[in-house]
């Protein structure tokens, strides 16, 4: 429904505003009719960097090093997506086997650390203590106090992922991994052996994390229904339809499982996806062109990938996937909070894949540079970042300087879905004109399930302190409440 038609139906507008949006990031508005039905939820993303402009005129070689600095949580994703585009610019379609495996290993390490951070450091307090539990205690420090074993395992899984990155890129964050058509340095025997020491533990802890999430998700019907939507899913899959993070064809399946596209060459992404701008957010709204603006929004990320793939190539994660799929009886699991469970299945897949790659003799190879081909003027790199399908698109001029850059980051693809989940949760929990503290907490949990990143990184990291206003159609404030830093809840309107 368009905004104009909402206004004409005399909707009320509720503004959910993080008082400390000074942390830069956003607020939520709800449009609500006279029966208190929520028609629209807006998650405003308020950060703007201007990357598309200032990358212009820079040499293409610099790009992977700039773009990783868009995001310190998943820098490797941007580094690799840009590197894949740069490979095309220098006429390389196939990396050497060792370079390909090093990039895959790097990406598994990154996905592991990012997923572990999100679950253990950020979301586990909600899930272990309850959505409405004591605010002072509901953070990673509280988890360390009450569940030290879980917290320390989480810290160590993240650490291991970071160590994999450091071994390949030289440091944990914003390292130097790729060169056009290859990799910067080989993995030494000592580095490989050091990583082998803890991998068995990491696999075991990852299994525990999957089991914990399965238990949390299935033990409570509220978790199953929470912000649940029926949407298409987009992800890369390998040529056999298996889960694939680094390189593959795009698969989009409708909510009922019917294929929209499969093994789609992502270099044609502009035919598949278009974006809409809305005046109230710096984050655009992508949609599937063939379905149109209204119906074409979709979800990406762990939930999309685990649902979309036909199988996972590592045995423990595959068995976990089958248990996950049995929840839907073969159909897609659309539960929004099942993102967490799917995320941990991927951590397990990363751990198994890292072990497999470390035992592969080719990982120690030193042939890192593919022969450069004829230079091309355009490169499009796509990977499955931790948060979902990530598109990087660059055009260069005759001197090899960037002329044009377009990025569709993973969180952007989930933009409409996050708004819809907030709307669903608001509908489910709002009571009359009163905005309850429970609603505020629950809105945060719905957004956090998607693990939003980049411009909304503070949302993901922070427990948003919130101020909510219920404004009547005449603009008068009907009700306003504030959640305080000490966990207090005040009516201020």
């Amino acid at each position, binding site marked *: 429904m368009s905004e104009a038609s909402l206004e004409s139906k005399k909707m009320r507008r509720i*503004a959910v505003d*993080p*008082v*400390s*949006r*000074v*942390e*830069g990031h956003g*607020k939520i508005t709800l449009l609500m009719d006279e029966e208190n039905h929520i028609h629209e939820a807006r998650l405003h993303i*308020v*950060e*703007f*960097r*201007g990357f*598309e*402009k*200032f990358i212009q005129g820079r040499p293409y070689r610099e790009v992977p090093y*700039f773009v990783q*600095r*868009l*995001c*310190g*949580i998943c*820098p490797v994703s941007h580094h690799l997506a840009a590197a894949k585009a740069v490979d095309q610019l220098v006429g390389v379609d196939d990396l050497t086997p060792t370079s390909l495996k090093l990039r895959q290993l790097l990406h598994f390490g990154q996905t592991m650390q990012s997923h572990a*951070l999100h679950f253990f*450091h950020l979301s586990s307090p909600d899930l272990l203590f309850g959505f409405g539990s004591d605010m002072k205690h*509901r*953070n*990673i*420090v509280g988890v*360390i106090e009450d569940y030290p074993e879980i917290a320390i395992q989480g*810290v*160590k899984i*993240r*650490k291991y992922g*970071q160590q994999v990155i450091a071994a390949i890129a030289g*440091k*944990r*964050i*914003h390292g130097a991994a790729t060169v056009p058509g290859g990799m910067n340095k080989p993995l030494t025997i000592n580095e490989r052996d050091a990583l082998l020491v803890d991998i068995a533990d990491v696999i075991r802890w990852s299994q525990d994390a999957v089991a914990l999430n399965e238990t949390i998700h299935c033990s409570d019907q509220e978790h199953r229904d929470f912000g649940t939507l029926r949407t298409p899913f987009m992800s890369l899959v390998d040529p056999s339809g298996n889960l694939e993070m680094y390189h593959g064809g795009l698969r989009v399946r409708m909510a009922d499982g019917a294929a929209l596209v499969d093994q789609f060459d992502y270099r044609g992404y*502009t035919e598949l*996806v278009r*974006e*809409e*701008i809305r*005046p*109230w*957010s*710096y984050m*655009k709204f992508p949609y599937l062109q063939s379905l149109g*603006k209204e119906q074409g929004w979709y979800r990406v990320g762990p939930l999309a990938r685990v649902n979309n793939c036909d199988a996972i190539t590592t045995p423990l994660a595959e068995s976990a996937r089958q248990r996950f799929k049995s929840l839907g009886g073969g159909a897609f699991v659309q539960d929004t909070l099942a993102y967490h469970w799917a995320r941990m299945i991927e951590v397990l897949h990363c751990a198994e894949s890292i072990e497999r790659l470390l035992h592969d003799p080719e990982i120690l190879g030193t042939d890192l540079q593919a022969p450069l081909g004829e230079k091309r003027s355009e490169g499009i790199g796509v990977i499955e970042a931790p948060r979902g399908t990530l598109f990087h698109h660059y055009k260069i001029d005759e001197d090899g300087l960037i002329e044009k850059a*377009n990025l569709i980051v993973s969180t952007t693809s989930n933009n409409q879905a996050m708004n819809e989940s907030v709307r669903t949760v608001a509908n489910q929990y709002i009571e009359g004109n009163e905005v309850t503290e429970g609603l505020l907490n629950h809105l945060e949990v719905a957004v956090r399930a998607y693990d939003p990143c980049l411009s909304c*990184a*503070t949302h993901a*990291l922070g*427990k948003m*302190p919130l101020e909510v206003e219920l404004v009547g159609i005449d603009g008068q404030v009907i009700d306003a409440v504030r959640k*305080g*830093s000490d*966990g207090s809840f005040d009516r201020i309107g």
Partner: protein
Amino acid sequence: MRNPKVRVATTSLAGCFGCHMSFLDMDERIVALLEQVEFNRSPLTDIKHCDPCDIGLVEGGLCNVDNVHVLREFRQNCKILIAVGACAINGGVPAMRNHYSLQSCLEEAFLNEIGVDNPMIPNDEALPLLLDKVHPLHEVVHVDYYLPGCPPPADAFVKILTDLLEGREPSIPAEILHYD
């Protein structure tokens, strides 16, 4: 009586969160740190405004008015303010937009972009006013210490905090001081 814990606040302004991630790269050492330190306002807690704090760690530069507002709150409440990382110290990658007008950056992202249906520059009042240029912290408030790096390594965080907790003037040895 036991001394109360040292109170630390952290925030990310126009940064990428990499400095916060690097802080967490102290890994299990965080457990020992928590015996001496409590987090106040931080992306890791629910606390929305600084109480009086001993140490404030600020990542990122200033790109909009909200960033300036938070920085002032930190300066007001923190006895010791530390500018963390390249962006806080000199603007970093976000400050690369300073070579262009803000208008041209917005136009590139929203009017000239590939695959966009309805070119327009978002202008809702919900969006905080962008600054014309991106600024480092010391142009707006007094900064007590600078921790360089993109990001500073975890060891550097541990060292500066340990020095301050033990009442020493911080000194970061060259081998853990990185500028990349």
